[in-house]
Every structure is written in structure tokens, then in C-alpha cells.
């Protein structure tokens, strides 16, 4: 399964994060150079650095969406080897396992709806929808084409059951201290799943200024993705059918981030990042459809494969702050985002780390997110009207707000830190958009998610 692959973002963020963190820790080292392996007297006042250490950080994410939708388990192991000159190599391995149901894009209706998809080629080992409990094999009338058919109950969001996929990814980053104030990083990412692969490379530079109170950085990356839908790539805006579709599609992402981090005063570190990227190529979801409904009754007339533009320019500005408030540490950030598809968004995030004992802290977290809809977002299309060039009912491209409430706990244990975080995520959108025809006005057309996640992790350093 795929959608919204974004390896470039990950690679760039990682590169910038590594540079900023390295320089930041360098400032720490100059104040109090304590190796991480010696136990800190207080986990909340730990000023040790990773110089000359190897750090292993392993964690696992358990993610569950309400209503029997996507469920994911994602273990990660990251190993960073540091020398005594400020150079480091990081290798990160990720494995994703996803199961569950995902909305197919059709609008709910008062009656049972029937959907048809191609069947995987005999003998081909894929793990997609074939395991579904509610699918039946049918022969397309008038042909000898075998197809899979499934249904959605009345007044229920149509979902495609039985999605199952596995992803494996490796990230590699090398960070080099050129001199006392300059650094460069080079890295790459390879991610592969049954129907998608992504390959990216990145390069970044940074420099300390102003007596190491200011750090400027820049990073670029290039990502190449290949979409390999299980049954081929459908022609956008054509009718959903059981016939096998076209070949693979590709897209390219070119991304750049420019950042400034600044020590404001003894208690306050601020960071400002500007991010711009251009996505070119296939960005449509090959599995997603959109309902074409009657303009009078609202009843579904047919289902079309969705269509998205092949070009997207994205820009964002991020302003982050770390502030020491007595024994606590506040993390407050804001992001504004704009793209050429017409989506504008605002993100506000705040977390407060509060010491509980000398070996334990808790960190409550709140996040608010709001976005406008893409200019080609439609809950449904109306039969008899001219078809637009682009149309998608994907709720991620619609207007909604989302809130996250979470709590993190960290405990000093053995040679490292055991950490856990539980979060609840809730999207709210327009369930009953104005103008919905006929009985469609009574249906809930918003297909956003409610999810809970739990992360458990352990990080330790050794010589």
C-alpha cells in the first residue's frame, strides 16, 4: 500500500536535525564536557555529550485507527557512531507492517454499494486485498475477466478491507566537522514496499556564527519514487473496473531547507526553517475512486478513479523554540504551510517536560492543526455535469482540523533512558457539506481518522 511517500522530507529533516543537534551539543560540550556513559546525577540536568560514543536508539510504534481501519506496527533501530572530532555516521533501519481497512473514496449511501477491482495475477505473491473476508471472485459479464467484488453496507463509509503491506527502509547519514564552526552532511534513504519504492539522497552544510550563538544551515535532496500498484495504474477519471490497468508510474521530489538557529538568551533557543519543494510526476492514488451521484436523489451512478495534478510546489515556514523554565523545558513551535494545490495549513505544537524525580520526567503534549481544502477536492461529483480534469475525495486533501493530546514519560534505567509515549489523534471535518443532493445530505461524508498510538523506546550509549 502506498500514498504520500515522503522520503525526501525524512532525509532532509534528519540531515538538518543532525547538523543542528551536533552544533548545539558542541556548545554544550564547551560548557561541561561529560561523556554520556557516566551516569548523570539527574536525568533532568544531564549535560553529557555523545563524543566518542556509539549510541543505539531502538523503539517500536503501535498505531491503531478507530473503526477497524489501519493498524500499524513499526520497529526502528538507529545506531550512531561518533568519533572525538565531531564526525558521526548514523544508520537507521525501519520495518513497517500495516493491516486493516482504508476508505476507497466513495461516498456512503442509504443502500448497499458494490465495488469491483482486478484480481492479482495467479502465482504472484502479493499481500494486498486478497485476504479480505468480504470479497468474492466474479467474472465480468461478457468477458472471461476474473475480478474481485466487495460491498459496503448502507449508511457506512465504503472501505477496502484487508490491506496488508510491509515496508523496509534504511537511512544512512554521514556528518563531518570541517572545522570548529563548519559541518557538512551527506546521506541517503532507500524504502521499499510491495507496490512502492523510494530512493533519495541529500546534502547539507551548516556554519556557526556570532560566537556560536547563531547557526545557519542549508540542505537539498532529490527523491525518486516508483509507484507499482498491484493491479496496474488506472487511467484517471475512468470507470472503476475489474480490468488490469497500465504500468508503473514515477515521480521526483526536489527539496531544499534553509534554517537559522539562534541562542536568544541563557534560557531560550529558537529555530527558523524555510522549506520549499517541487514534486513532479504521478501523485494520484491509484486505489482511490470518487462517486458520481445523481443530482436529484444523491444515489451513486458510477465510480471513477481519482485524478491529481502532476506538479505540486510546497512551501512551509517553521518556528521552533526550546525554553528552560525553572526545572522544566518547554518546546513550542508553529508551522505555516502553503502549496500550489490550494492547501494552506497552520500547526501549533507545545510540550512541557516536567521533572518528577531525579531519574524520571513526564512531558504532556498538545498539537493543533488546521488545513484548507485542495482546489480539486470534491466529496462527490454530480452526474450530467462536465467532468473536471482533477478530482479527489481523499479527506487528507479536504478541509479539517486535528488535535493531538499525548503524554511522554522518560526514566533513567541502566546505561540509558527508557521512554514511552501515548497519544490520541482526532480529525474533525465537514460531515454534511451544504448542497448535498437528496438523501446524501443525511450521510456523513467526512472520512477523517481518529487514532491512538503508543511508542516504547530505549536509548543508550557505549564506548
Amino acid at each position, binding site marked *: 500500500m502506498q500514498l504520500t511517500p515522503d522520503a525526501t522530507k525524512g532525509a532532509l*529533516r534528519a540531515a538538518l536535525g543532525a547538523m543542528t543537534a551536533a552544533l548545539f551539543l558542541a*556548545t554544550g560540550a564547551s560548557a561541561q564536557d561529560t561523556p554520556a556513559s557516566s551516569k548523570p546525577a539527574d536525568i533532568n540536568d544531564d549535560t553529557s555529550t555523545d563524543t566518542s560514543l556509539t549510541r543505539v536508539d531502538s*523503539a517500536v510504534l503501535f498505531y491503531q485507527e478507530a473503526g477497524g481501519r489501519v493498524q500499524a506496527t513499526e520497529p526502528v533501530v538507529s545506531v550512531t557512531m561518533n568519533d572525538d572530532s565531531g564526525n558521526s555516521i548514523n544508520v537507521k533501519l525501519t520495518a513497517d507492517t500495516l493491516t486493516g481497512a482504508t476508505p476507497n473514496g466513495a461516498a456512503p449511501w442509504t443502500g448497499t454499494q458494490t465495488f469491483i477491482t482486478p484480481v492479482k495475477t495467479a502465482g504472484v505473491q502479493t499481500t494486498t486485498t486478497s485476504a479480505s473476508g468480504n470479497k468474492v471472485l466474479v467474472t465480468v459479464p461478457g468477458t472471461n475477466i476474473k475480478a474481485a467484488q466487495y460491498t459496503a453496507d448502507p449508511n457506512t463509509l465504503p472501505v477496502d478491507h484487508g490491506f496488508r503491506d510491509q515496508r523496509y527502509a534504511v537511512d544512512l547519514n554521514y556528518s563531518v566537522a570541517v572545522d570548529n564552526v563548519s559541518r557538512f552532511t551527506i546521506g541517503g534513504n532507500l524504502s521499499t514496499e510491495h507496490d512502492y519504492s523510494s530512493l533519495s539522497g541529500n546534502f547539507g552544510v551548516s556554519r556557526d556564527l556570532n560566537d556560536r550563538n547563531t547557526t545557519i544551515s542549508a540542505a537539498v535532496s532529490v527523491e525518486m519514487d516508483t509507484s507499482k500498484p498491484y493491479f496496474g495504474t488506472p487511467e484517471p477519471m475512468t470507470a472503476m473496473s475489474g480490468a488490469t490497468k497500465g504500468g508503473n508510474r514515477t515521480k521526483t521530489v526536489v527539496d531544499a531547507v534553509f534554517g537559522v538557529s*539562534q541562542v536568544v538568551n541563557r534560557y531560550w533557543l529558537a529555530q527558523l526553517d524555510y522549506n520549499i519543494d517541487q514534486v513532479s510526476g504521478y501523485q494520484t492514488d491509484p486505489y482511490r475512486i470518487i462517486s458520481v451521484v445523481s443530482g436529484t436523489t444523491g444515489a451513486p451512478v458510477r465510480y471513477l478513479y481519482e485524478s491529481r495534478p502532476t506538479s505540486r510546489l510546497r512551501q512551509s515556514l517553521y518556528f521552533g523554540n526550546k525554553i528552560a523554565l525553572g526545572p522544566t523545558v518547554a518546546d513550542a513551535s508553529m508551522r505555516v504551510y502553503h502549496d500550489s494545490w490550494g492547501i494552506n495549513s*497552520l500547526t501549533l505544537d507545545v510540550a512541557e517536560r516536567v521533572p518528577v524525580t531525579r531519574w524520571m520526567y513526564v512531558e504532556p503534549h498538545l498539537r493543533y492543526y488546521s488545513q484548507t481544502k485542495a482546489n480539486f477536492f470534491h466529496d462527490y461529483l454530480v452526474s450530467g455535469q462536465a467532468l473536471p480534469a482533477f478530482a479527489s475525495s481523499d479527506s487528507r486533501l479536504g478541509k479539517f482540523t486535528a488535535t493531538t493530546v499525548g503524554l511522554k514519560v522518560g526514566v533513567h534505567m541502566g546505561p540509558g533512558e527508557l521512554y514511552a509515549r501515548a497519544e490520541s489523534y482526532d480529525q474533525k471535518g465537514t460531515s454534511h457539506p451544504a448542497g448535498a443532493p437528496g438523501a446524501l445530505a443525511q450521510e456523513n461524508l467526512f472520512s477523517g481518522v481518529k487514532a491512538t498510538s503508543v511508542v516504547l523506546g530505549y536509548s543508550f550509549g557505549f564506548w
Partner: protein
Amino acid sequence: MPGDMITRLFRLVVAAGVAAALSGCASMGVKPWDRDLLARRSMAPVTHPNLTGFEQHIYFSKEGSSGGSGSAGGGCGCN
């Protein structure tokens, strides 16, 4: 929040950020002996890269926006 408001806010923050970067940085900062609090591991921009990676991974697979800061999880297979 209406889209044009967010667009205006975007432009305002860009302008303010550029102005601050150009004029303000040189006058801010601390001496090396005043970095005791900044040197805490808890004051690092990203204290738990894996947590930040998971977080970014979830958000870019469930929302229409991406970018910002932190370290995301790479190529996505999450929805």
C-alpha cells in the same frame, strides 16, 4: 481558519522571520560560561529522533501538509 487568513499569516511570518534573521541575531546570544542550561540534553532541538520520526510519519500520511522540522521516517506506506 479561512485559507486567505493562513496565507496572510504565512506572508507575515516570512517577513517577520527574515527581518529578525537579518537584524536581530547579532545582538542576541550568551557567553560560553552562560550555556549551562542550554547544554542540557533536554534542551536539544530534537531529544528523541525516533519519536519525532514516528510523529512526522503519522502526520504526513494523514494530513495534506508536510515539512517543518524534526526527523521523519522516510518513504511511506502508512495509509
